[in-house]
């Protein structure tokens, strides 16, 4: 029985090692490839995604960055993946590699582990939470402070709106900024509007409202 359980683990480890090497062949210096394989294997064993490591290595080499600096960036990505995974676990989401990668992006954009935990605690399903984390990171990149950022994305996640509504938030914030609002004001205004809409139901024509009352007898 132990053999049967250990076999897939060993095969997967070999497969991932080969996969990393294949994706990096000819794209990065050998020492970077070795480091990615080392960090990737360790990350994979902890249930973390390896794609962010591979992509960062390719990006660094394509930009002509010195290998030592690429190595530092890779170690930072590995650390941020760990932070994101812990934050998501604290929020009740375990072992979702796509959400962890999205959390790592949010951290790179300036959010903290507790911000990620707050979004995970909205109870959104993993797919919606993954999009929410990426949107929150994009809003942070637009200059929205964490409190307003998490407030807006949390309201959107709790309202159960479709993913397209979440994805439109950065454009809506940019539009408000273009009209003269600060990023914080823009996000807070959108959050208030979304909360009011959630309290009173969607506007006419969007469906999902209460069914009409039956006619009186």
């Amino acid at each position: 029985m132990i053999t049967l359980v250990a076999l897939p683990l060993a095969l997967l480890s070999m497969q991932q090692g080969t996969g990393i090497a294949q994706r990096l062949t000819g794209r990065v210096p050998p020492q970077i490839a070795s480091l990615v394989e080392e960090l990737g294997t360790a990350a994979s064993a902890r249930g973390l995604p390896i794609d962010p490591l591979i992509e960062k290595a390719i990006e660094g080499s394509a930009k002509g960055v010195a290998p030592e600096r690429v190595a530092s960036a890779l170690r930072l990505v590995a650390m941020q993946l760990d932070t994101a995974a812990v934050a998501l676990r604290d929020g009740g989401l375990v072992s979702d590699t796509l959400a962890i990668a999205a959390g790592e992006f949010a951290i790179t954009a300036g959010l903290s582990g507790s911000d990620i935990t707050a979004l995970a605690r909205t109870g959104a399903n993993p797919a919606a939470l993954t999009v929410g984390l990426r949107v929150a990171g994009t809003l942070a990149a637009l200059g929205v402070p964490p409190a307003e950022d998490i407030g807006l994305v949390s309201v959107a996640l709790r309202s159960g709106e479709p993913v397209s509504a979440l994805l439109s938030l950065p454009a809506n914030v940019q539009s408000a900024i273009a009209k003269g609002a600060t990023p914080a004001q823009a996000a807070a205004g959108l959050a208030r509007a979304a909360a009011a809409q959630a309290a009173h139901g969607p506007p006419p024509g969007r469906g999902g409202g209460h069914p009409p009352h039956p006619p009186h007898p």
Partner: protein
Amino acid sequence: MSGHELHPLVKQLLDGDITLADLPAELRAEGEWALRLLAGVDRTDVSMPAVTWRVMAQLERRRRRFLPWLLAPALAIAAALVIWLVPRTPAPASLVTVRFVLVAPDAKQVSLAGTFNQWDPQATPLVRAGATGVWTATLMLPAGQHQYAFVVDGARWVPDPGAPAIDDGFGRRNSVLTL
């Protein structure tokens, strides 16, 4: 003596509880007969190879029937591990048309590099629109999030001034596009 019911004292004699001398005189003849009969019994081991084989074969079949039940939990755990550990592949994303624009009047060539083309600075050149210095490229990108930068004259990595940007970890900025 066929069909004869032995006297209880004779039965005790056969059981070894009493001796022939303990029997009353009228039962001694019956007791002697019973002892002779018992002495004539063949006490060698009975060998029934066919029966033994059938019983053992039956046990083996039962063991074989039981084996899958023993293996099933192990196979289930192994399968669950494979499913859990194999990285999930996202569903095919829909494509979105995106137009990239950079104003760079002095540039001789501009290209686009990002997560969508493995950061290859030669993969996606922009086209100059007349003499205005406006460079454009229109791409079909999968829905999701992309990071990118413009590459001016093959060497200078420039973030998109119209898009949010994040630290790239190398001291520069990457533009972010969420579709």
